[in-house]
């Protein structure tokens, strides 16, 4: 796993600033350590003395990027979440787009565009998959918590999705691989790491709802149409570990 931008110490802000610079044909200066409020409603804190200045910088940079091309802005955020090192590709594409116009971002015959997009597609696919496959358990403190082991650092995008779903209710997402967690409680987001993050995992007890879900899952399958290879294709086995319905 790449320790850099995919981790939470640095938000996507740096990458946004660098992409803006690349767009304008500048070589990137040492970017400040910042956090982007776009994806992450409450991002991990930057050093307090620099926070304001950085946020303003990043807001301006992301505004510039978005008005140039929303597509490029999205690619920026996806690259940041990727566990592959997509940054050099992203910055190269931003430079090309700055020189030749935003439409080249859709031109798959350009090798760099194609490679960047393939990488970003993998991140996007995982976000969409986990929006469905995350399984929440109800903890005794009333928080619904989901353990995850994503290939990419997709928690920020998932947080946004589940904020809409839980509509103010308390929930937590725990990335067990990266030992990071996001907790949403009383309308506030908290980012936790290390042991503190793992403490948010659901307890092991099997609830009545879980038992009912397993019953539903086996009853809804049509035995005359069995096709397990299709099931595996849509739902790769590496995601099965936390799926209530497939645990014995």
């Amino acid at each position, binding site marked *: 796993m790449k320790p850099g931008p995919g981790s939470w110490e640095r938000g996507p802000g740096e990458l946004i600033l660098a992409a803006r610079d690349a767009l304008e044909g500048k070589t990137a200066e040492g970017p400040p350590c910042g956090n982007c409020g776009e994806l992450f409603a409450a991002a991990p804190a930057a050093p307090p003395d620099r926070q304001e200045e950085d946020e303003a910088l990043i807001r301006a940079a992301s505004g510039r990027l978005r008005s140039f091309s929303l597509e490029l802005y999205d690619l920026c955020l996806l690259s940041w979440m990727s566990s592959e090192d997509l940054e050099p590709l992203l910055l190269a594409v931003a430079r090309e787009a700055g020189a*030749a*116009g935003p*439409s*080249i971002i*859709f*031109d*798959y*015959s*350009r*090798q760099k565009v*194609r490679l960047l997009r393939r990488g970003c597609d993998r991140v*996007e*696919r995982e976000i*969409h*998959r986990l*929006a*469905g*496959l*995350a*399984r*929440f*358990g*109800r903890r005794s403190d009333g928080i*619904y918590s*989901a353990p995850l082991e994503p290939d990419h650092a997709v928690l920020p995008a998932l947080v946004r999705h*589940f904020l*809409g*779903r*839980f*509509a*103010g*209710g308390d929930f937590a997402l725990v990335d067990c691989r990266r030992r990071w967690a996001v907790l949403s409680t009383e309308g506030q987001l908290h980012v936790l790491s290390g042991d503190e993050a793992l403490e948010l995992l659901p307890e092991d007890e099997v609830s009545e*709802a*879980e*038992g*009912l*879900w397993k*019953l*539903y*899952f*086996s*009853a*809804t*399958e*049509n*035995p*005359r*149409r*069995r*096709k*397990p*290879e*299709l*099931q595996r*294709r*849509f*739902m790769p086995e590496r995601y099965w570990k936390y*799926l*209530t*319905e497939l645990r014995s």
Partner: protein
Amino acid sequence: MDLGEKLSLLAAAARYDASCASSGSARASGAGGLGAALPAGVCHSWTGDGRCVSLLKILYSNACRNDCAYCVNRSSADIRRSSFDAEEIVSLTLEFYRRNYIEGLFLSSGVFSDPDIVMERLIEVARILRERELFAGYIHLKGIPGCGEALLRKAGLYADRISVNIELPSSHSLCLLAPQKSGAEILGSMRLLGEAESESREDAARLRSTPRFAPAGQSTQIIVGASPEDDRCIVNLAASLYRRYGLRRVYYSAFIPVAPDPRLPSPASPPLLREHRLYQADWLLRFYGYGADELFEGAESSFAADIDPKCSWALGHPSFFPVDAGRASYAELLRVPGIGPAGARRILASRSSRSLRSEDLRKMGIALKRASWFLSLDGRPLREPAQAEIVRADLADHSPPGNAAGRPASAGQLELELS
């Protein structure tokens, strides 16, 4: 019967309905509510039959007055009967939703009483979810054939989608196999739903606060292979349902015999390949600009087993090809086997900044193995023309029915009800 037994029974009774979509609505919760509906829909699991689970799909009751020969819940079947009560369904929906097992509820029912009474029960569940629990997730309600107009209109205020299943493609077959059902009644309900939906769209255009009627529209299901109608008849029916009543989806469900009956065929295995070809044709109708009448040549009335309907059309229209990848319109590109909406868009996008080479097409993810028979660049065909039989053998799809060909590669719309 305890809740678990009831759930198993009434979920198994509902699994022959192929619809699982949770897409097409956008709704957020108000304060104190739960859930959201998203335009793209989300799949939450896949069962061993490879079909996605997106909704809690259950019957309110499997008791039924109708004796439809093809149906597992027909009145003459010797099975255990049971019913939920509204609170049980509400609690299951909310509990499953909070754990992220489902996007919402798909509630259908056997006709255990007067159709109005059955429909009222279904509406009551949706009403509690929306009004008392402030549930903003997805709700799909079955329209019970024969229920009153006012009830269908009321259902559409709570539900995202309403479906009335036509089940059999002709009134003759309905008469024979589902004697208590009437084709005219089913089509009447569909017409009403179509009208209510377009009225609400017009009202919403004038006044934004107008509550939307079933924002994800209506769908239906046709059973394939229980009755003698051919593919042409089914495709024509689907096309006219899309056109006349504004349906969003027609689902096709390969007939699986549930009891020996002299009126029904008894195939060794369900006609999954036929179902697959119908889905492919359905995609051509909805996303590729084909008309139903274009999909069959002359007296032909069934799709080929060896090649998909798009390849069939291409082989039957040699004068249309080759299509020049450097100049063709979006609509022309879509007619080329191996090019879908995403591929066609990519070709147009890259053409705007430079001239295309065949190498570029491959890099864009165009399936050149198929497309190269039908494409040219700068006036030169990508591949030497060959005899039709050779091309046909090359285009044959040997993969077992699974995912519909021509499905867009993006993960946007995941309605994976296919075999």
